[in-house]
């Protein structure tokens, strides 16, 4: 990861963090039978999503070297980053390319065809979506082995 890419991802996460927090609440199926309970539930979801996105942004901004090494202090933080990567991918999917069908996202060939036809904003978001997915996969793999 070059310093330029690190800067872009950090900025993207800074911008997408609040949206990820809202999205986590809006997407969740929260029990509605008690107003106070519902609010607490939503607050917990929103706060944890925001904290995890901040942790992810800080971790990427502190990455050093080329290829960059992201240092994570402990396993708990690593799982928080894994969750944040999921949150940010869902937010990108919902806000930047909601019109791209699921089938296209799951097929490399279909995605390659599509990539040449979509606007650059969506293309960049798709690249980040893929990058975060790879990062998440690698991190889970490492955590499972440890």
């Amino acid at each position, binding site marked *: 990861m070059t310093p330029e890419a690190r800067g872009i991802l950090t900025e993207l996460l800074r911008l997408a963090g609040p949206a990820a927090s809202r999205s*986590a609440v809006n*997407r*969740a*199926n929260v*029990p509605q039978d008690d107003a106070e309970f519902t609010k607490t*539930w939503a607050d*917990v*979801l929103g706060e*944890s*999503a925001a904290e995890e996105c901040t942790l992810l942004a800080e971790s990427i901004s502190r990455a050093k070297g080329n290829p960059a090494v992201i240092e994570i202090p402990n396993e708990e933080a690593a*799982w928080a980053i*894994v*969750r944040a990567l*999921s*949150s940010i*991918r*869902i937010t990108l*999917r919902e806000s930047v390319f909601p019109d791209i069908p*699921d089938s296209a*996202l*799951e097929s490399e060939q279909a995605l390659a065809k599509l990539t040449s036809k979509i606007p650059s904003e969506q293309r960049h978001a798709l690249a980040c979506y893929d990058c975060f*997915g790879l990062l*998440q*996969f690698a991190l*889970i*793999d490492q*955590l*499972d082995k440890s």
Partner: protein
Amino acid sequence: MAKTKANPKPKSSTRTKLETRWCVVVANDPVNTMNYVTACFIRVLQVKRPEAERLMLEVHHEGRSIVWTGGRERAESLVLQLQQWHLRASLETGA
């Protein structure tokens, strides 16, 4: 000596009341990957990897899976935790 009734009526009837079973349901979503969902089930539901993978595949192929059933309080706690992992989890009452 007190007389005893031949067929004393019971003072109270014994009834068996079934507790409502609450189901934690996870629906498929297009973003979260298979290894992520498996990792989530292992940590949140405290199940071994083969069971986590079985549940994950059920979600993937069937579109949803009942991943836990039991009392309401625990079910709510599990749904909240699964939602914190950004899975599409919900609470339903079982039959």
